[in-house]
């Protein structure tokens, strides 16, 4: 066990931003906190980082109350992007590193590594304000973990990045995980969460709808996503027992089942002993589960 939230509540007078939140993040794990805007993600991050006090409940790191934890163990990338515009890239990283107690020699090595990793070598001696938005974001990201934190919180780290830099960031997150860093992050892009997270917590208006492993969440729904490529008539398919919804994607039927157990019967009827080009039964994607759980769009 590393980070544990137990019955955490945050109230603003008559408004409850976070209500009875519980989750545990294991050491070296990547944990996703997902929810719509206003679900309470940033408030939760701020409580963990001791930037805000919780109304009630307990937040601990290895059993120690978070307020007593050495702040240099923590790293944070806020949702809103911001660095010191007048400072040069390298100066900025040295400042944040030294502020977290790193020695200049070790800091230099880390800066060299991450600047090369994120392809910022040419920008090293430029003022932050002269960089593109994406490059500023990369500098801020490096600043958040340059001091080798034990626990890193990334609030919407992927927003605003192009696909190439998004892949670079995923690679960086996995590298940090390899180094033993425990990571908590939020994202509106469910494919990223699905790709990176071991465990997650799904928030809706401050209430946790699910907390656990991604596989457990998917198992809750079962394998109800059926993809068919066949000449079987659509009208017949829709009438079959266990079929909740049928969508057409080019030459394929995308069928949502009410329960996984109907799949075998459907296979028998559709194939009828004949050749069938495609019959694939899968778990729902996190995006589909999310939409079903929170009942709306992510953004």
């Amino acid at each position, binding site marked *: 066990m590393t980070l544990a939230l137990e019955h955490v509540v945050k109230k*603003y007078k008559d408004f409850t931003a976070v209500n009875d939140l519980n989750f545990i993040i294991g050491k070296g794990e990547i944990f996703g906190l997902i929810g719509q805007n206003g679900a309470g993600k940033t408030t939760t991050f701020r409580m963990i980082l001791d930037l805000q006090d919780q109304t009630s409940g307990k937040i601990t790191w290895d059993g120690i109350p978070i307020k007593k934890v050495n702040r240099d163990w*923590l790293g944070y990338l806020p949702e809103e992007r*911001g660095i010191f515009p007048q400072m040069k890239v390298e100066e900025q990283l040295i400042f944040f590193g030294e*502020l977290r107690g790193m020695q200049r020699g070790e800091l230099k090595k880390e800066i060299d590594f991450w600047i090369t990793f994120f392809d910022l070598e040419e920008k090293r001696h430029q003022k932050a304000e002269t960089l593109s938005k994406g490059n500023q974001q990369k500098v801020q990201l490096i600043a958040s973990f340059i001091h080798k934190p034990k626990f890193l919180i990334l609030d919407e780290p992927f927003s605003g990045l192009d696909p190439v830099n998004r892949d670079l960031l995923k690679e960086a997150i996995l590298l940090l995980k390899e180094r033993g860093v425990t990571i908590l992050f939020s994202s509106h892009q469910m494919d990223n969460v699905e790709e990176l997270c071991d465990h997650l917590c799904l928030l809706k208006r401050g209430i946790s709808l699910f907390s656990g492993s991604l596989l457990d969440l998917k198992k809750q729904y079962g394998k109800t996503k059926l993809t068919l490529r066949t000449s079987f008539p659509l009208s017949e398919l829709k009438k079959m027992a266990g079929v909740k919804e049928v969508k057409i994607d080019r030459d394929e039927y995308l069928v949502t089942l009410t329960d996984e157990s109907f799949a075998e019967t459907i296979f028998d009827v559709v194939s009828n002993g004949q050749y069938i080009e495609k019959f694939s039964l899968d778990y729902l994607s996190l995006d589909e589960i999310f939409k079903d759980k929170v009942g709306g769009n992510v953004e």
Partner: protein
Amino acid sequence: MLNKLWILIKRLYKQKIRAKSFILMTLFYMAIISVILFWSDIKAIFVNDEALEVALVNETSVELEPIFVSNEEITFRFPSEPEEELHEQLKQDEYDAVVVVSEEEETLKADIATYVPLKLVDQSTISSFIQYAGKIYGIQHLNLTAAEADRILNSEPIITNTNLNEGLADGKSEEQKQSGMWVSYFVGIVIYFFIMAFLSMITTDVASEKGSRALEMLLVSVKPSTHFQSKIIGITLLAFTQFAIIFGFVLVLLRFSNQGDKWDKVVSIVEELSYSYVFYAIAFLFLTIILYLIIGALFGSLVSKVEEASQVMTPAIMVTLVGFYVMISGVANPDTLLIKIFSYIPLTSGMVMPMRIGATDISSIESILSLMLLLATVIVSYLLSLSFYKRSVLTYSSGGIIQKIKTVLKVTT
């Protein structure tokens, strides 16, 4: 934590001291002070101030000519031509004025004729000569000897001030009060200019960090109280650096210019000052600047972006302006009720109280009371601001300053 505080102070200090705006502002102050100190020399380069040419016609029976002694500003001539001819010469710009002095019912009468109207200062100069001549004329009519007349005109009373209430008065001489007045004026101006420059600097600095969201990353590694302290200490150091540069420059300028004439004047002023006055002046200067920096940092934490900084600073600037004008009014009379009231208000006492201490005979209890009030306000403001800063620095809201305070209280309590 001390190390983190030092890192924050170092970054702020280095960034601000290298800023073009700071360098230009320091150079600007130095240039302005140089111009003020050497105004008469600079004026002499650009303006050819010739002495006023005045023709004096004495139609009285008394010999008044020795009274009208020429100096750098005025040259008296005593022509024998008739008045009409002198008026012609006046038109031809040979004279600036023709003064005809005559008698009327045992009183001196003077007619001043000009072709181009005289400046106020020139009118006053001629008038003062004529008034003195009037006194001489009156004395002459009393049939006094020259020695008797001289005694009347030059007799200086010996004035000794004795206050029997020992606890009340410290019995300053007029010279000490004049010196106190000059130094207080200097302290007041320093406080005013420093507040104007550094209140704005600290407010916009906190506001820009908050607006750029860099603050959130900082506050993960340092406590809001450390961040708050770093701003106050960093900007105070910067303010005193600027003060030291300008003050050092002025000292060098005074010491090595005009064969040290001005330096001697400054030394004579400083010699009149007591140690207690110097202590009070420095204490008021230091505490007032700290108080305004605390307010500035707090105001900066209230706004959501740097553009809103000037809006929240306005009340503090208004109070400073009021204090400054009250202090200016004290140059004419430092004993008014207005001065007394403002010398106890912590936001203005730094500008007003040194004047009362230096230029009036107030009891030491009053000075201590005002200083203690200021010190208590600094401590209370610091503690309250610290508590409020923790809550406001990550709260983003719109509206006026009152609305912003309400929002902070609403979302953090």
